[in-house]
């Protein structure tokens, strides 16, 4: 009995050959935590006394992930050692963790993904997360949904996990939220736009195609992007194909959504329950810490499943004390709510601690006040100190009567005080030991920065105290690679611990309002499903104005490129397919809207028509060109015949081939590129009449084109009545709409009792062919008459 059950259990383990894999990008690719991250990678910074990476592992383990690849770049050795020493590498952890050290040249998430591809790490659908994730969301459920969707739709390559939060949530990063446009039914992500706090993004543009193809959409700005993506194996290869993708959201997501070549879909999974957040910056460090202490991450809480393996005792008011009785609390010290105190820490008399996390082996001196601060292991704080909303690294010594104001970051090993006073948002790190041997090459790029910092020490107003070994990092924009922008700096500021950005003059960019929160809530969050028209109508935004000039430049280049490529195609007789592919590629390269492509194609085709003397040869010429290339207009991605006609009109109006407009239109109609309804629709639109155009020959021509169209429609009407009531007299049924005409003709057929009319109605094909031939004649004569008229006027 027993062995049988045992073997059954083992078999169960073997049965799951479909191993769920995860890839962790353990590098943040930014420097928001410096100077804390000078010696330690961000993913090994402790949050609630356990390295961030362990929280991430635990989050994934909760979801049943069995194999994890950790892509590390900076301080890769440290990460590797941390993994091999952790409980995860012990047998029986049930998870295989493979650290992957990428090249130093990996500068972005995109590079890391390309590395994943070249190494061939993943074999099936996998979970992609960042190395700073804390979550208790059931990712396995997301994976299940993803796989289910993949069964019916092979193009659904990625599912992003997003979490609903309110308008103003502490965990929702202010400077780094995004607008998601989702299909209300399938929750397919249709459009994505990042929202930056400075300069404030006041508007978002939703492409028209989105509104066309989806009857119901949700525009949401209340979602926390958890950066948990369930990806198919294609995703790394897409990164490989598009070597310029860097950011997963801004580049990859945007690229996939806007590309009509790839035809891939990305979906969102709006997590109703569960918690997930990333520690992206010092501000979110604070909020995630608070969330852990107030148990939002349950069961991932200090007293239950602490990733660091520590055991904490949970007492009233969310106070957590290491439960091995090694914490020594003075009788008169006060421990406030939402506090975590690590093992072997000593709190002396009259010390007050509230809303803080104290690491292991720390000492808090008598009468010190620690408020909302995060103190790493082995830090000693002297008597009568005040530390407010700051992050203090490991092994720091803060001597007596020091004051540290909000938002300070104190790097590992720093000594400050006594009697030091730090201004808000000061960043301190240890002065380099001049005699120390040359540091690892990794530090090289930082060395220059640090020298510069050391050179500028006299500017600071903070008092560091006489025993200090610290140096103060400069405020203001750093001259980092691409962050030398003032805006970027101000954006960064909002993400700092304790900084609410209130002193930033947000109003100069956006006169409507200066208050961050109220503004955001009124604009996006008051209703998640705003009427779409409200969001699309105002087009001009500061952001887009800024982008306009390069866009126009590209347009001009693009038109030339298209003309050339089509010229080549015409000359060398390419197939329509090849030409279409070429055009699509061109469009991808220069990133222009579809309309521009259509415009360019139409103008190229029209210009290809040679002007020949004589009506018949001219007609043949047009017939040849349209017959050969007309199809191309619909092959460039998306069919919009009305637009085709109006573009043709616009082009002809300003071209020497203006007289051919009627003929070309007729030819397009013959080739089924333009339908009768399209012509009617075009004809009704105000733009077709030349409304809104300034005077001059072009406007006149536009109006004439419209007149040609009017004649054509008149003919359609005539034909209709003709074909439907043949032999009844041609004058009848003029100007009647189709439905009416039909019913009338039927009625007549009955009333007059003609057997003929019925048979006529049945043999529709015949009738149609007749129509066509007739309309051809008509349009021909039309065109001729037009051209005659034109020559007369000229």
């Amino acid at each position: 009995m027993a062995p049988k059950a045992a073997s059954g259990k083992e078999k169960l383990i073997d049965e799951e050959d479909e191993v769920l894999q995860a890839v962790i990008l353990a590098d943040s690719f930014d420097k928001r935590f410096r100077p804390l991250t000078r010696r330690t990678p961000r993913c090994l910074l402790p949050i609630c006394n356990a390295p961030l990476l362990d929280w991430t592992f635990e989050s994934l383990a909760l979801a049943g992930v069995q194999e994890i690849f950790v892509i590390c770049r900076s301080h890769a050795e440290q990460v590797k050692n941390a993994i091999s020493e952790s409980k995860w590498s012990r047998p029986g952890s049930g998870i295989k963790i493979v650290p992957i050290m990428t090249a130093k040249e990996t500068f972005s998430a995109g590079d890391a993904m390309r590395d994943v591809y070249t190494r061939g790490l993943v074999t099936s659908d996998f979970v992609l997360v960042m190395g700073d994730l804390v979550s208790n969301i059931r990712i396995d459920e997301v994976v299940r949904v993803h796989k289910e969707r993949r069964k019916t739709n092979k193009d659904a390559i990625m599912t992003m996990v997003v979490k609903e939060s309110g308008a103003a949530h502490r965990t929702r990063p202010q400077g780094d939220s995004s607008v998601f446009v989702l299909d209300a039914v399938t929750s397919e992500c249709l459009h994505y736009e990042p929202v930056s706090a400075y300069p404030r993004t006041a508007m978002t543009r939703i492409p028209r195609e989105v509104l066309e193809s989806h009857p119901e959409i949700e525009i949401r700005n209340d979602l926390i992007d958890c950066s948990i993506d369930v990806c198919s194996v294609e995703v790394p290869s897409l990164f490989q194909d598009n070597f310029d993708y860097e950011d997963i959201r801004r580049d990859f997501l945007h690229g996939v959504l806007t590309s009509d070549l790839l035809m891939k879909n990305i979906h969102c999974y709006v997590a109703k329950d569960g918690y997930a957040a990333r520690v992206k910056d010092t501000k979110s460090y604070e909020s995630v810490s608070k969330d852990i202490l107030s148990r939002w991450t349950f069961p991932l809480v200090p007293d239950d499943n602490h990733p660091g393996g520590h055991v904490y005792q949970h007492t009233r008011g969310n106070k957590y004390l290491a439960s091995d009785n090694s914490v020594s609390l003075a009788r008169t010290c006060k421990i406030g709510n939402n506090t975590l105190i690590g093992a072997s820490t000593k709190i002396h008399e009259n010390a007050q601690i509230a809303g803080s996390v104290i690491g292991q082996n720390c000492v808090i001196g008598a009468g010190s006040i620690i408020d909302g601060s995060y103190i790493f292991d082995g830090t000693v704080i002297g008597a009568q100190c005040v530390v407010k909303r700051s992050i203090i690294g490991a092994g720091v010594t803060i001597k007596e009567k020091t004051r540290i104001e909000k938002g300070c970051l104190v790097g590992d090993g720093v000594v400050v005080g006594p009697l030091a006073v730090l201004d808000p948002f000061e960043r301190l790190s240890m002065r380099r030991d001049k005699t120390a041997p040359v540091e690892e090459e990794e530090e090289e790029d930082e060395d220059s920065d640090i020298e510069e910092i050391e050179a500028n020490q006299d500017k600071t107003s903070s008092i560091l105290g006489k025993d200090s070994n610290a140096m103060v990092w400069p405020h203001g924009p750093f001259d980092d690679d691409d962050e030398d922008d003032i805006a970027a700096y101000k954006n960064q500021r909002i993400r700092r611990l304790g900084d609410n950005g209130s002193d930033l003059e947000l109003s100069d960019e956006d006169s409507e309002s200066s208050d961050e929160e109220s503004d955001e809530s009124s604009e996006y969050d008051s209703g998640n499903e705003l009427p779409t028209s409200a969001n699309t109508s105002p087009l001009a935004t500061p952001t887009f104005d800024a982008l306009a000039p390069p866009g126009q430049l590209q347009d001009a280049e693009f038109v030339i490129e298209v003309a050339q490529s089509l010229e080549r195609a015409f000359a060398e007789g390419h197939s329509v397919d090849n030409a279409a592919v070429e055009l699509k590629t061109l469009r991808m390269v220069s990133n222009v809207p579809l309309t521009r492509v259509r415009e360019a194609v139409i103008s190229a085709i029209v210009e290809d028509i040679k002007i020949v003397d004589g009506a018949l040869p001219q007609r043949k010429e047009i017939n040849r060109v349209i017959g050969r290339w007309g199809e191309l207009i619909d092959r460039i991605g998306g069919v919009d015949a009305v637009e085709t006609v109006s573009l043709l009109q616009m082009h002809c109006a300003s071209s020497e081939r203006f007289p051919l407009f009627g003929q070309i239109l007729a030819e397009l109609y013959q080739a089924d590129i333009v339908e009768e309804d399209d012509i009617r629709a075009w004809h009704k639109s105000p733009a077709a009449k030349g409304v809104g155009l300034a005077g001059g020959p072009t406007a006149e021509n536009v109006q004439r084109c419209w007149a040609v169209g009017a004649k054509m429609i008149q003919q359609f009407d005539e034909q209709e009545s003709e074909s439907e009531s043949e032999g009844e007299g041609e004058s009848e049924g003029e100007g009647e709409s189709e439905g009416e005409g039909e019913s009338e003709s039927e009625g007549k057929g009955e009333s007059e009792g003609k057997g003929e009319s019925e048979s006529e109605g049945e043999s529709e094909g015949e009738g149609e062919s007749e129509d066509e031939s007739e309309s051809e004649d008509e349009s021909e004569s039309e065109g001729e008459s037009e051209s005659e008229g034109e020559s007369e006027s000229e």
Partner: protein
Amino acid sequence: MTSEPANTPTQRAVENLAWKLRRRQIVGSRATALETLLVLRQVISKSRFSSMEQLVTIIRAVGRRLVEAQPKEHSVGNTVRKVLHHIREEYHTATKGTAIESSSGFSISKFVLLGQPRKQSAPAKAESKGTLKENDPDDPDSFARSLKPVLMEAIQDVLDELETVYDNVSKSAPNHIHSDEIILTLGMSKTVEHFLISAAHNRNYTVMVLETAPSYGGRDMAKTLAAAGISTFLVPDSSLFGLMSRVNKVILGAHAILANGGMFAITGSLLAATAAHEHCTPVVVCAGQFKLTPLWNLYHEYGALDFSDPSQVLGFEEGSLVDKVDVVNPFYDYVQPNLIDAFITNDGDHPPTSIYRLIKETYDDEDNEL
């Protein structure tokens, strides 16, 4: 000493369970007890030992690992203790020929026992008698080989007890519920559900089920009871006190029964028990014996309550409030012994005051600290 590293599949099974307990992938006292038992069976069947002490050490090591992984699931430790107790009993039977009748003396619980005699451990197998030899240098496995079938049987006994716990508890249901009574219950407890349904076979009575926010287990309970043909009312928690005057009996489930006669039970139990106390309505607790807990977090009652995440109470989307409100969402209540009138177990009915005795009989004192 921990179990030897050669036992990797066993080791893996233990670790696996420990992780599941830590991550709360297995919750509920019966589910954890069952899983623990299965792992213990695997451990015993695979491990090599040549004396009783070694076997006990191995089992204790496993038990300690599991209990440390999740001290709040009391039935894990209880199961380990129970298995140890049974193993010792079997061992004594096998070596001495007769079991030491440890539980046969005078006992209040026996006195209170309503009719069904305790399941006596089966007499030892004839073939194992006499041949048992510990620490045999010639054949170190002989001890294990001869004892193992008996041990398996002992574990099977525990397993059987777990599997039949609902039926055994509900056997006495008609004695407790009378016709036309109004019973109040709360939460979703399988034991209580079986108890009520079995009483409905011969009695016609009414049940009021509290919704039991924030888990709303009461809703499921009401559905099941109504489906079983019992006239059921689902009432909001707030009307508890008002209704109490009409209620004849409060029947609760338990998460763990403590040696002092108190218990841990789902949130709301304390409220219901207090209200019942105020109205002098009897409070009856239905629970299996595997919930008897000799050791619990005595000095940190608060911490043992198992606080889950606040999202059930305050939605995460209430962003502006999250920062300003501290939500306390305990999953269990500690109900003091003076609020409880009787425990109905699969081993008869007991007053809270005699629980300590029951625990003494069920477990060996030396196992209290694993």
